[in-house]
C-alpha cells in the first residue's frame, strides 16, 4: 500500500472528521475525534491491511500519518 492510499484508509477509521482534513502531515493525535476507540480501529486496520502489530506505544512515538506509515514499513 502506498502512502496516499494509507492516508485514505487511515481517514476511514474516523466517523466525524472529513476525509479532506487528512494529509500525510496530519498530526493525528491533535484531531478532535482522536481517542482510544479510534486508536483501536487504527491498530486493527494495520493488523488487517499489513499483518503488522502496532502497539499504543508505537502510536505515541510518532506524530504524523506519514511517520506512522514509515514505522509500519520498518516492522
Amino acid at each position, binding site marked *: 500500500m502506498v502512502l496516499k492510499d494509507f492516508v485514505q484508509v487511515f481517514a476511514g477509521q474516523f466517523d466525524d472528521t472529513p476525509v479532506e482534513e487528512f494529509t500525510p502531515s496530519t498530526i493525528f493525535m491533535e484531531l478532535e475525534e482522536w*481517542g*482510544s*476507540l479510534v*486508536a*483501536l480501529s487504527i*491498530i*486493527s486496520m494495520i*493488523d488487517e491491511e499489513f499483518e503488522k*502489530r*502496532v*502497539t*499504543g*506505544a508505537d*502510536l505515541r512515538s510518532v506524530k504524523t500519518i506519514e511517520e506512522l506509515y514509515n514505522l509500519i514499513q520498518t516492522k
Partner: protein
Amino acid sequence: MSYLSIKNVKIKGMSACVPERVEENRDYTLMSKEEIEKYIQTTGVERRHCAIHDGSICTSDLVQKAAEKLLIDLNWNKSDIDLIVFVSQTADYRLPATSCVLQDKLGLSTSCMAFDISFGCSGYLYGLGVVGSLLQSGSLKKALLMVGNTQSEFASYEDRSMYLLLGDAGTVTAMEYSPEDNDQMDFHYMTDGSGRTSVCVPDGGSRNPVNANSFIMEDHGDGIKRNRLHEKMDGLEVFPFAMANVPKSVALLKEKYPFDHEKIDYFLIHQANKYMCEKLRKKINAPIEKVPYNIHEFGNTSAATIPLLMVTNLGKELQEKKLDFVMTTIGVGFSIGSARVNMGKIVCSELMYL
C-alpha cells in the same frame, strides 16, 4: 511449549451467582448520552451486576452461594469433596487463602485440600487444567473449581475505560475422577510478563505498599482519573497483544490436538469487550452463530466470563448433550489460555443472585 491434556476427568456440574445490584451504563454521569451510546455500541456492555465494595459481598460469598446450590442439585455430599481451588484476584484477605475460608463456610471436610490461584481473565482455563491434573491420577475424587471476581472494586468512577466495563460474578465447576465416562480437555498456555504494567493495580501489594500517595487521584488524560489502588488498563497495549497471540494460541492448540473446526459447537471467547471479541472471532474463523455473548448484561467479569456464559447461555444444552467447545482467554499478566473441551450432560443450576 505448554500443552496439557487431561484424562479420566469429567465435569459434572456448573453454577454461577452474581450480585443482585445492577449498574446501568446509561446512568453514568461523566459522559454525554451520545458518548455513552457509542461506548455501548463498541464494548457491548449495557449494564453490569456489581457489589457495593464495603465487605458485604465478596467474591467468596458469590461462589459460596453458587456452590451450595450446585451441591444440592448434584446430590453430592459435602464430606466427599477432596479438593477446592479458588481462582480470583479479589481474595477476602491478603492472607489466609480464601479457599480455606470457603472450606469452613461451606462446611466441607477438614480432610479437604484447598488452595487459591491468583489470576485474572485467563484464570478459568488455568483452573480447569490444574484441577484436572490433580484429579486425573484418581487419588482425589471430587473437586470444586471456584472462579470469580468482584473486580469492579478496582475501577475508578472517573476512568470510563474501566468503570463501565467491569462486572462481578462467582462460578463453580464440579469435577470428578471418572476413568470410564470422561471428558476431553486439551489446553495450550502462554505467558508474557513483559506486559505486566499494562493491566495493573500498582499499589497495595508488597512491591508498592499502601502509602498516603496511593490515594491521590491522578489525571491520565482522555477523561481518565484514578489513584494507585485503582486498576489501570492500557487497552492500546492489550488489544495488539491479543490480536497477535490469541489466534496463535488457538492455532497451536489445534496443531497439537487436531480437531475439526466445522464440528465445534461453540467458540467461547473471554468476554473482554465486544469490539475485541469480534476481531478475535474473525481471526480464529469462528462463525458468528457459534460465538455466544452475555457481555451486554454482565460486562467483563474477568476469569468468570466463560463459566458464566456457559451457565447463562448454554445451561439447557449442556444438561441435554455433550458439546464440543473451543475456549480462549487473554488477560492480565499477560496470560493466555486456550482449550478444546468436549463435555456435557451435566447438572447446570439456574443463575443465582445475592
